[in-house]
C-alpha cells in the first residue's frame, strides 16, 4: 500500500510516526529544506542558538518533535525541498517538483495532507510597501534566520501569534514600537472560562501579555489600523484608539496578521468538499473527527484541516494515521485512538473560546476604502471588486472572472479572505454565501520549462 504524507510539521511528524510504528513506509514530502513546521521552525544547519532561546516555553515540545522527525526520515521515502503542486484524484497521482525544478509523479493509495496554515491579512492603505510582512513571516525570520523585520517594528492584528511574536521581538532586542490588537480587552476576558479547557496554554498567554506590559511595550487594544505611511518603505502607522483618537506611530517595519487560515489547496484539488466554519471565519475542508475526508483514501490533519494550533496538529496527525491504518485493516492502537479522541474533543472547546476571543475584524474589511489594493499580485482595489459586485458577480469565482482578483501569483491565498468580506458586504449577503475561490493547479508557480524527473 502506497501511503504519502504531505508536510512535515507537527501533524505530519506524528502521522508518520504512527504509520512507521504499524510497519508502513510512507513517502514523506516536505516543501521546506527540513521539517518541523512553523511554530517549531528549525533554523538551517550550522545555526547554533539553543532550543530554549528559539522556542521559549515550546522548547521541550520542539526538541521531542525534532527528535521524532530525524528518527523517522530514514524509515520513510523522505523528500524535502519538494512542492506538491497538483493532484489528479481520478488517477491517485501527485505532481511534485524538487529543488524548484525536477518533476515527478507520485502515485498513492492513501494520502495524509498536513499542509499547515498561513496568516490571514486585512489590507489597509500602504500594506504593499516594502517592510510590511505578516506576523508569521516576522516570526519565521526571527526563528529560522535570526533576523528581525526591523529594529522598531509595529505588530498589528489579533490572536495569540500577535502577542507571542511581540514578546519574541522584545526579547530579541527589537522592542516593538506598538502592538495593536483590534480586539477589545473585554472580548478576550469574556472567553477566559472557555480557555480553561487548555489551562497551561491560556495561562501562558496571560503571562505573555503581562511580560510585554512589564517591558514597557506600547499596547493598544480595541484599536483600528488606518494606514501605513512610507515612500521607500514603511515609516509610520496611522491608527485610531478605542476612544476614536487618531495617532501616528513611527516604525521601520510592520507585521500584520488576524489569525490563520488553512492552506487547503491540495485538499481542494483532491476533490474534498469545503464547509464554511462561522466560528473560525474560514472555509474548512470536510473531514470527520478522525481526519477522514469524504474522498476515499484522503486524510487530513493539522491546521490545514481547520485551525487548531500546534498541539492539536500533533494529536490530529497521529489520529489521522490511526484512521488510515484502521481503514486499511492494518494494526492500530485502540487505546491511543481513544485517548486522542478525548484530547481532540477538549482542545476543540479551547479553540472555540480562542476564536471568540480573537475574532477576525470582518467589519474593517467590509469598510475598506475603494482605493485600497486587496489583491497585491494583480493590484485589484476594493473599489474594483465592488464594481464587479455591481456587474452581477454573486460569488467569488465570478468576481475573479470580472476583476482578475486571485489570478496572480498567490492564486488568492492571501487576498481570498478579505476579498470575500468586501464582496459580501457590497452584495449585502453573508461571507459564506459568496463562496471561495476554486483551487487550480499549479498550487504555487512552477517553471514553464519542466525538466524530467
Amino acid at each position, binding site marked *: 500500500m502506497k501511503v504519502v504524507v504531505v508536510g512535515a510539521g507537527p501533524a505530519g511528524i506524528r502521522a508518520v510516526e504512527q504509520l512507521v510504528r504499524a510497519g508502513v513506509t510512507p513517502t514523506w514530502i516536505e516543501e521546506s529544506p527540513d521539517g518541523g513546521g512553523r511554530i517549531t521552525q528549525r533554523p538551517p544547519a550550522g545555526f547554533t542558538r539553543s532550543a530554549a532561546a528559539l522556542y521559549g516555553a515550546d522548547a521541550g515540545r520542539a526538541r521531542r518533535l525534532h527528535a521524532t522527525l530525524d528518527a523517522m526520515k530514514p524509515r520513510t521515502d523522505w523528500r524535502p525541498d519538494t512542492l506538491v503542486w497538483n493532484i489528479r484524484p481520478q488517477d491517485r497521482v501527485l505532481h511534485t517538483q524538487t529543488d524548484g525544478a525536477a518533476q515527478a509523479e507520485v502515485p498513492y493509495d492513501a494520502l495524509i495532507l498536513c499542509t499547515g496554515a498561513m496568516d490571514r491579512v486585512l489590507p489597509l492603505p500602504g500594506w504593499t510597501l516594502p517592510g510590511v510582512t505578516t506576523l508569521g513571516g516576522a516570526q519565521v525570520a526571527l526563528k529560522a534566520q535570526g533576523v528581525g523585520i526591523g529594529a522598531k517594528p509595529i505588530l498589528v492584528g489579533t490572536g495569540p501569534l500577535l502577542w507571542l511574536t511581540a514578546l519574541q521581538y522584545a526579547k530579541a532586542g527589537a522592542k516593538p514600537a506598538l502592538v495593536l490588537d483590534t480586539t477589545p480587552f473585554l472580548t478576550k476576558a469574556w472567553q477566559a472560562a472557555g480557555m480553561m479547557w487548555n489551562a497551561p496554554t491560556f495561562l501562558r498567554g496571560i503571562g505573555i501579555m503581562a511580560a510585554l506590559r512589564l517591558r514597557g511595550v506600547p499596547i493598544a487594544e480595541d484599536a483600528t489600523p488606518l494606514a501605513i505611511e512610507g515612500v521607500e518603505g514603511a515609516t509610520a502607522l496611522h491608527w485610531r484608539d478605542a476612544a476614536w483618537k487618531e495617532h501616528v506611530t513611527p516604525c521601520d517595519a510592520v507585521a500584520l496578521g488576524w489569525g490563520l487560515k488553512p492552506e487547503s489547496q491540495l485538499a481542494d484539488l483532491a476533490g474534498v468538499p469545503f464547509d464554511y466554519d462561522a466560528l473560525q471565519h474560514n472555509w474548512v475542508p470536510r473531514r470527520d473527527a478522525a481526519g477522514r475526508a469524504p474522498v476515499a483514501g484522503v486524510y487530513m490533519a493539522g491546521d490545514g484541516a481547520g485551525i487548531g494550533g500546534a498541539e492539536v496538529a500533533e494529536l490530529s496527525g497521529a489520529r489521522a494515521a490511526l484512521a488510515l491504518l484502521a481503514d486499511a485493516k492494518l494494526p492500530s492502537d485502540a487505546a491511543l485512538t481513544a485517548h486522542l479522541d478525548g484530547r481532540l474533543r477538549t482542545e476543540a472547546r479551547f479553540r472555540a473560546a480562542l476564536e471568540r476571543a480573537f475574532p477576525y475584524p470582518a467589519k474593517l474589511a467590509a469598510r475598506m476604502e475603494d482605493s485600497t489594493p486587496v489583491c497585491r499580485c494583480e493590484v485589484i482595489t476594493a473599489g474594483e471588486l465592488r464594481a464587479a459586485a455591481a456587474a452581477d458577480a454573486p460569488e467569488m469565482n465570478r468576481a475573479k472572472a470580472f476583476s482578475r482578483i486571485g489570478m496572480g501569483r498567490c*492564486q488568492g491565498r492571501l487576498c481570498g479572505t478579505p476579498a470575500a468580506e468586501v464582496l459580501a458586504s457590497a452584495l449585502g449577503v453573508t461571507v459564506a454565501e459568496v463562496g471561495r475561490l476554486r483551487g*487550480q*493547479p499549479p498550487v504555487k508557480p512552477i517553471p*514553464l520549462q519542466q525538466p524530467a524527473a
Partner: protein
Amino acid sequence: MRQALVIGGGLHGLSTALHLARTPGWQVTLLERRHVGRHSSGVNAGGVRRLGRALPEIALSVVAAEMWHGIQALVGDDCGFRATGQVKVAESAADMARNEARVAEVRALGWRHEEVVDQAEVRRLLPAVSPHVVGAIVTRDDGSADPMRTVMAFRAAAERAGVTIREGIAVTGLARTAEGTIRVQTDQGDFEAERVANCAGAWAPDLAALAGETIPCGTKASMMIVTERLPAFVDPTVGATARALSFKQTASGTVVIGGGHQGRSDKAAETSTVLFGSLAHAARIAAEIFPCVAQARIVRSWTGTEARPPDDMPVIGESRTLPGLFHSFGFAGHGFQLSPAAGAAVAELMARGATNLPVAAFSQDRFAVPA
C-alpha cells in the same frame, strides 16, 4: 410579438439572442442552466483569427472579422479587441513550402487576408522570436479580445435589445405542441415558442437527442497556461505551422499559452481537468519559439468544455426532426471569432427561414445519420 427561445448563455447563444431581438417583431428569452459564460465562452484564449481557418469556414470568419472591427457599434463596448495581428511561424523550409501552398489555395478562392512573409518581416513583427524561424503567414488585422468582457458586453447588449435572460434553468425536454409551436420543458416549468435555438455548447447534442435527432459530436477541453507577468515583448498572437501552439501576451504582461492541447472533460459533472503532461509539451514549444519565456513560471492553468463534431466544424442548421429548432454548436475551439456572424446567421434563419450569410456548409446533413 412572435416568441423565440435561445437555449445556452454562451457567446453564441447571446449573439443569436441579440440579433434576433433586434429583428422587428421578435420577443426573445434566453435560458441558461448555470450562468452566462460559464464554460468555454468565458475561458477561451480570445483569438480573433481568420488565419489558418478550414476553407469552408473562411467566408463566415471574414464576415465576423468586419463585425469585430465595428464591435463597439454592435455591442456598445470594444470587448478588449486589439487588432494586433495573427502570425503563424514557419520553422523550416518544409513549413515555408506548406505556408506558400496554403496561401495560394486561399488566394485562389479570392481571399486576400493571408500573406506569406520572409524572415526579415517576421523578425520585424516578432523581435523576440527564435532565430530558427524562417518566415510566417500573417493576417495583419486579426487580433484578440477579452473573452469574459466580450461575454458581458454581448449580455448587456442583448438585455438592452429586450432579451430576457434567465439563469439557473435547465432544459429537460423538447416537444411539438398541437398549435405547431415548440414546448421547452425545464426544471422550472414549460416555455413555449415558435422558434428555438440550440446553443448549448458541449451539451447541445444532448438537446438535439431530446428532439429525436442524432448528431455525431464529441467534446473538447482545450487547456491553457498563464505565466507570471513579463515585460512586453510580443504584440500579435502567434501560432506555428507544424506544431500545436497558440501564444499571446496580454496587456497585463502575462503570457497565455494554448494550442488545442487537450485536458479531460467530464460532461456529466460539467467540469474539465488540466492534464499537465501535454501542457508541458505546449510549454516546450513556446520556449523554443520564444526563448525569452524559457525561465518564466506558470501561475495558472485552466480548461473549458466544448462540443467537437468529427470534422471540427460547427453545426448550424434547422433540426430535421423538430422544425423550428435551430442548432448552432460544435465550434470545436474556434468559435469565439465567429460568434458575431454566426449569431446573425442563426437569427436570420430563425426569423426568415433563410440567410445570405455563408453557413450552408455547416448543415448537419453533411453527416450520415445513423439509422
